């Protein structure tokens, strides 16, 4: 069981999950725990010879009931591949799986915030290469969604709605647009190739989305992921995080409530600033909390648009 300690100096929680120190680390292909279980072979995490999408409790959880949740989402039973390379129908199914987990975990009293994410690449600490993501159910409201709520207050309404309006008006950083979804490098991107994928209409979470919007979200996310891979002609590492409405804590309204806050969007934080160079979080980023970027969002948006076009 993890231990929470509150850092009174920074005003934030720190999670101690010391059992994770011994978690499976980059096993060889023959010992991938996310592969299906081959008849006669050693049992993996998924004791079936084939599957479409599997979700299970993390063997090395950062959170577990009654103090949150940590789940693994395996996108396919194929060991090789990536989110961007999934068949379009599978990516769309994944949106429904995310929706299911947001609904179920969000209904739990011990979970205040559901965060769906994918770490891709050893550069961001991936320990298993099989295409998969994770879900954390936090027993508290973490600093980032708390800051997004504060932005709503500062801007006098839904911050992602307002920021989307500004990006559409400016146009310089737009990457992809469809009827339901817009992708852009944000005006104040912290990472060189940071991208936000935002629902056009105010949808607090996946629960409020129409089926067509889920399809559009999957298509845009995959187009971006393939564009990333085309950018430097290599598998492109990133952290992909789904931002949705908190499910508990002060001010959280139930799904369907007109007062419900939050705006579904997906943020990508890629650590590469060139094909070979990583952006490190160093003195200013760690000591002051202020990112210093070597690139301009308007310029990275140009090359990302070209990469997305090449990958299409």
């Amino acid at each position, binding site marked *: 069981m993890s231990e929470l300690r509150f850092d009174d100096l920074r005003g934030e929680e720190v999670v101690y999950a010391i059992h994770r120190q011994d978690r499976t680390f980059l096993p060889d292909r023959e010992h991938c725990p996310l592969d299906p279980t081959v008849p006669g072979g050693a049992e993996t995490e998924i004791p079936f010879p*084939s599957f479409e999408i599997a979700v299970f409790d993390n063997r090395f959880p950062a959170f577990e009931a009654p103090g949150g949740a940590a789940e693994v989402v395996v996108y396919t039973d194929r060991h090789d*591949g990536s989110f961007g390379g999934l*068949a379009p129908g599978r990516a769309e199914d994944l949106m*429904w799986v995310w929706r299911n987990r947001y609904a179920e975990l969000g209904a739990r009293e011990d979970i205040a915030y559901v965060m769906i994410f994918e770490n891709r690449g050893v550069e961001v600490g991936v320990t298993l290469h099989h295409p998969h993501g994770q879900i954390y159910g936090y027993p508290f409201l973490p600093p980032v969604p708390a800051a997004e709520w504060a932005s709503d207050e500062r801007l006098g309404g839904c911050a992602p709605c307002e920021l989307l309006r500004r990006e559409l008006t400016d146009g310089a950083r737009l990457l992809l647009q469809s009827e339901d979804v817009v992708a852009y490098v944000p005006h104040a991107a912290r990472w060189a190739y940071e991208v936000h994928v935002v629902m056009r209409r105010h949808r607090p979470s996946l629960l409020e989305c129409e089926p067509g919007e889920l399809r559009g979200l999957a298509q845009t996310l995959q187009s971006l992921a393939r564009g990333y891979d085309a950018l430097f002609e290599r598998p492109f590492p990133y952290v992909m995080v789904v931002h949705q409405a908190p499910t508990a804590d002060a001010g959280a309204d139930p799904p369907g409530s007109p007062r419900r806050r939050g705006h579904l969007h997906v943020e990508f934080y890629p650590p590469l600033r060139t094909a070979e160079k990583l952006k490190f979080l160093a003195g200013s980023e760690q000591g002051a909390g202020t990112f210093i970027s070597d690139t301009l969002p308007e310029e990275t948006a140009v090359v990302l648009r070209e990469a997305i076009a090449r990958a299409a």
Partner: protein
Amino acid sequence: MTSGPHERTPPERGDGAAERTPEPEAETARERFGPLTLLRTRKADGRALLLFSHEEAEV
């Protein structure tokens, strides 16, 4: 490893629903969620395992 920039994953294999009958003692249930069928079961150590598929479910 992850796929290269222009490499696309070939059509998914094993796209059928889970073929193996879960352990007899495992609690299992099938339900519909959107276009998917959800099979709920538990692993031998008690952890929850959910399998989402397009297999038709008896609900």
